[in-house]
């Protein structure tokens, strides 16, 4: 049987949370493609400090939690939930605008 939309979204969100919580702490910490190229080609030192380096979530860690893996896992959990929330908000506004504009002419004057 086909899962309902609510079940599907719930399961998908659980999967995203599980990946952030249990897999991200074990992800590679090597520089990514761009950073590696920057190091190799000698322009990595042109990077400036991030304006939000003082953020309590800076560097995918939760300030105050010293265990590196737990800190990263929790930051991932927060990030996934925040992204879902911001996404719902923005797409919700976009969809509502459509519903409003979709009204037949003359109905809202």
């Amino acid at each position: 049987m086909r899962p309902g939309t609510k079940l599907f979204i719930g399961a998908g969100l659980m999967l995203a949370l599980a990946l952030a919580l249990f897999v991200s702490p074990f992800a590679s910490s090597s520089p990514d493609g761009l950073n590696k190229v920057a190091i190799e080609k000698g322009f990595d030192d042109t990077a400036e400090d991030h304006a939000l380096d003082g953020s309590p979530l800076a560097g995918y860690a939760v300030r105050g939690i010293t265990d590196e893996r737990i800190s990263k896992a929790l930051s991932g959990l927060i990030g996934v939930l925040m992204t879902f929330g911001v996404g719902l908000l923005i797409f919700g506004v976009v969809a509502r605008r459509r519903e409003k504009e979709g009204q037949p002419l003359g109905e809202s004057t």
Partner: protein
Amino acid sequence: MHIPDGFINAGTSLGAGAASAAGIGVALRRTGDWLEDRQVPMAGLVAAFIFAVQMLNFPVALGTSGHLLGGALAAVLVGPWAGMICVSVVLLVQALFADGGLTALGLNVLNMGIVTSLVGYGTFVALRKVLPASKPAVSAAAGVAAALSVVISSVAFAAEYAIGGTGTAPVGAVAAAMVGVHAIIGIGEGLITAATVGMVLSVRPDLVYGGWGVAAPLDAGPATPAAQEAK
């Protein structure tokens, strides 16, 4: 792939910011043309999933890693316009994690969101035209499109470096190195994208924007513009 502040000069970053703002403006309008309330959770989920998977850096070569960009994946799942909004939401939240510069946000939206969604979706549609209308073919088309989107995204960075790079390394060398490493990262992007699209197709094919022709509409019928066009 997140560009930190400083790699690209302020003028070029500002230009990319203006281009990105215009692109996202179009994306919001185009998405508003078709997105219904009941489709909002799927779009939110795609953004949240990309945030999670972008944390999963995989090793690509000695001392180098790569991670999903997700623009092509999002484009296949929710369409190219909503897709680039998903990646932009991810980049916005990532600013709180001090990932990707603030003045470089426009550059990152352009490279990781807009370029990947458009290149990914364009390639996906072209492949679907020559491939059979089956679920494995849709997954494969998504995977190949995603791999290509990463390489083109790295070319976009090279172009920005050519215009406003603050480093002294020659443009040709930077471009060659970027394309070289991202060709390998692209394989990972392609595999993750194909697997994810395949997973959604197997349980809820009707939720895949690019799944026209393989999703038997059970209730409301094909809701996305792509599905209506193909009808």
